[in-house]
């Protein structure tokens, strides 16, 4: 009868049960001589560092860049950023695990963030999320996540597919959404937020949602 499972979400935290591996050396700032960094990545991180009075400010953009290269913030990715930024990997791991968009476990290369926060869920996001999960099944290419409010409640229920906002989605849209992403096509072009007009009737002489305001993304 207990509906709240003993280790239900919120209790089980990955990592909590892990001891340090005493055979490893302490993780200090990586030695450039033994830590090769892809040239493009190094250049990008260095460019970010130059943007700020304090190089440490480039942490988020640098981690994001490394994630684009490696698919996730793997220990190797973090080591490379640490090496270029002259920070310890632990510092970067601490930052990376704080932010939802930085992945600290391996994930599929197509991200589908389905907003399941309040406005979207009022419009059926929970069912949508379940449908996307089911449709993606165990396709290792997809990283389907229930996300907090993505700031597009006007197109609820919605999702961000590889960074492109689409909505309002129906359950029928799900297969095409995944297919488009898989095929590298613009995802559901007619439902992209980029093309949507402001809702305010005073700001519109026409009815929405005609006339794409911008080119579809993707």
């Amino acid at each position, binding site marked *: 009868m207990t509906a709240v499972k003993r280790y239900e979400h919120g209790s089980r*935290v990955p990592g909590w049960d892990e001891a340090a591996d005493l055979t490893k050396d302490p993780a200090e700032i990586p030695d450039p001589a033994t830590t090769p960094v892809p040239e493009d990545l190094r250049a990008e991180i260095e460019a970010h560092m130059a943007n700020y009075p304090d190089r440490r400010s480039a942490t988020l953009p640098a981690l994001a860049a490394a994630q684009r290269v490696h698919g996730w913030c793997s220990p190797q990715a973090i080591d490379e950023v640490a090496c270029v930024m002259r920070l310890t990997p632990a510092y970067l791991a601490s930052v990376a695990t704080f932010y939802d968009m930085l992945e600290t476990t391996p994930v599929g290369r197509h991200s589908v963030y389905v907003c399941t926060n309040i406005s979207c869920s009022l419009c059926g996001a929970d069912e949508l999320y379940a449908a996307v999960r089911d449709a993606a099944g165990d396709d290792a290419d997809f990283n389907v996540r229930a996300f907090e409010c993505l700031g597009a409640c006007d197109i609820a229920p919605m999702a961000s597919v590889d960074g492109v906002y689409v909505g309002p989605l129906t359950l029928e849209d799900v297969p095409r959404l995944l297919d488009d992403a898989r095929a590298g096509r613009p995802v559901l072009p007619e439902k992209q937020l980029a093309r949507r007009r402001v809702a305010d009737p005073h700001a519109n002489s026409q009815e929405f949602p005609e006339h794409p305001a911008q080119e579809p993304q993707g």
Partner: protein
Amino acid sequence: MPRPQPKTITFTIDGLEVRAPENSMLVDAAKHGDVEIPVFCYEPKLGNPVGACRMCLVEIEGIPKLQTGCSTPVKDGMVVHTQSERVKTAQNAVVEFLLINHPLDCPVCDKGGECPLQDITFGWGKGTSRFIEPKRHFVKPLELSPLIAIDRERCILCYRCVRFSQEIAEDYQLVLLERGAHSYVSTFDGHPYVAPFSGNIVELCPVGALTSRAYRFRARPWDIEDSGSVCTLCPAQCNVSFTVRDDRVMRVLARENDEVDDGWLCDKGRFAYQSIHVDERVTQPLVRDGGELRPVSWERALEEAAAGLRRARGKVAALAGGGSTSEEGLLLARLLREGLDSEHLDTLAGVDCRDLHRLAEPALQATASDLEFAHTVLVIETEPVRDIPILDLRIRKGVRRHGVQLAVATPRPSSLDASAKLALRYAPGAGATFLQALAAALYGGELEETARAAGADVEQLRALAELLRTGGATGSAPQEIVILYGDRILGHRGADDLLKLARGLNLHGHAGAGLLAVPAAGANGRGLLEAGFAPGYGPGLRAIAASGAHTGRNGAADGESATDGKDASALGVHGIGAALATGELSALYLLHADPLRSELPHETWSAALEKASTVIAHASFLTEGLREHANVVFPAESYAEKEGTVVHPDGRLQRLRPAIGRRGETRAEWSVIAELARRCEVDLDVLTGAMASQQLFDAVPFYAGLSLEEIGGRGVRWQERGAASAFPQPPASAPAEPSADGTASPEAVGSIWDTPEVEFSPSLKFLYKRERVEA
């Protein structure tokens, strides 16, 4: 940076008018009125308050919301309530929140009985909880490092440990991972948290989440006693408190002394106590018999040693290690000088004592805490984390919190480079030449040539000169500069150049500025010199006139202290080595020293020890030189068993108090020396440890009038007492011809991590291996 001088204000707390320093945080100010505000995350040693735990909420009139007492500076006229209904509700609430996921496993928790969470729950909590949901349960404890275990269930996320790692040690290895209620303390990708100061987090943790693996389950707060003393495992001489149970040291905690250690300990100081209780320790007198060292009676060992010494009269030398007390140095010097007609006494450092004398002038002396408040600090020829670790933290603190400008000049990359404004390199062994080049950059002279000879970069030298000349000070006031130097730099006229800098940079008599040596001679290097354990120098740095002119009763040269009339025939460590090898000297007395376990040339010393007819040692461990060459070994007291005094590099006399009884048959070492002296027909006139100390205070003019009581638990800098004026005028110029002793090898002593105490402490062994590999 002048130290802040807070003014006193009056505020009201719980209806009481209280005077407190302005702008101190309310939780501290409240203590002046005997009001306790509970805290978890607040720890002023860790820097600015973070206000995370919310335990310290108080009500301040005129401010609608409750405020955190840990972060609210007190102002004149403030009216504060800590007992109102609102405050109590908030306190109860915070305790309740903290406990909802806490396992409440106090009966099996190592912290039980000395746990702030227990105390605060008892004092400020409601005693009940309304939380009936399942708590988190996890595997525990887990290893965080070879030294530390972590129990994440107990953690209350106060941030103390991670702040230590990030803001004090600055190693950035221990961090919080994840967010919100999922946050947990960890390291990167399962790496252990291994860093020179890691053990401090155990002491910082206000719950039982971080525990010492060496101490876990070994004792309970109600069956231990605390005993304050001083760690003599390196020159930093941090103040410690030994946790003793059943006459065994179970743990070492910091005993905060701002002037010495700022409340921190390095891992050696914290864990090397284990070497006190290991089987490898020598706890009986040993005599070589049939090629083997064998346990014998005290009588036999004493007689064997005394006979050897008597036979070698006039041809005896003694070497002392840094762990010796000043009293032991004084008494052994008397034994040699008065009983054995020998003037050959030295440490293993091989630094010319005349140079040491010139640099020991009281007016030139900076203190450990000056490192934190100076405008500019120059670290030269020393890697603090290897030589005198706790000062590494002090320097970092100065840079981080007080804007000290740091320059580092060393032969190898330094761990302080990242904090430094300037990091300069020179060739190993070229420290003195580097100083000469720096002097040239500042005051003219052949710069480029000298810089090249030192293997240093001219532009960087110029930048350093510029920093020292102008950096930091505002207005017209001259800036305060502190130079922290490894004193092995002194050979090759290094002292001349250092003194030239000191004069030019206005270090002389300038409060907050000055020189601070890291003695190559080890922990009590300074104390041994001042006690007269030095070739040609009697107690109080008075030169002993050439041979024949016998010293008086207390080893003091009779009144006249000719400045440079020191006995030129007195040999220093290098001379002793050579003389032993040629047979000019035949007996060697090793007080906590093993030349083969040092950076002295191994072959020379192997030969010297081989040739010596008598080698007498005081030792805790049979290191290579002793195992193979000693004829008699007396068991040495560990630092937790010893009484006596030592002198910090900045001149602070500190007192060792025995925390436990001596192991096995070990006897007080001063009494062993006195007994040997008796057998060599000298009466040293000591019957107790206190008498030995008194003899020291009487013998050294600039200690005059000191007593053990005055030294007390915090120590006394002799430079700050009236008797300091008795400091003998140092020789005006460098020794005429730099003696062979004036050439310290570039690394006269190894890292403090490379010693028997580390090697023989079970939980530190892993570090010892690491250091060896790196060396």
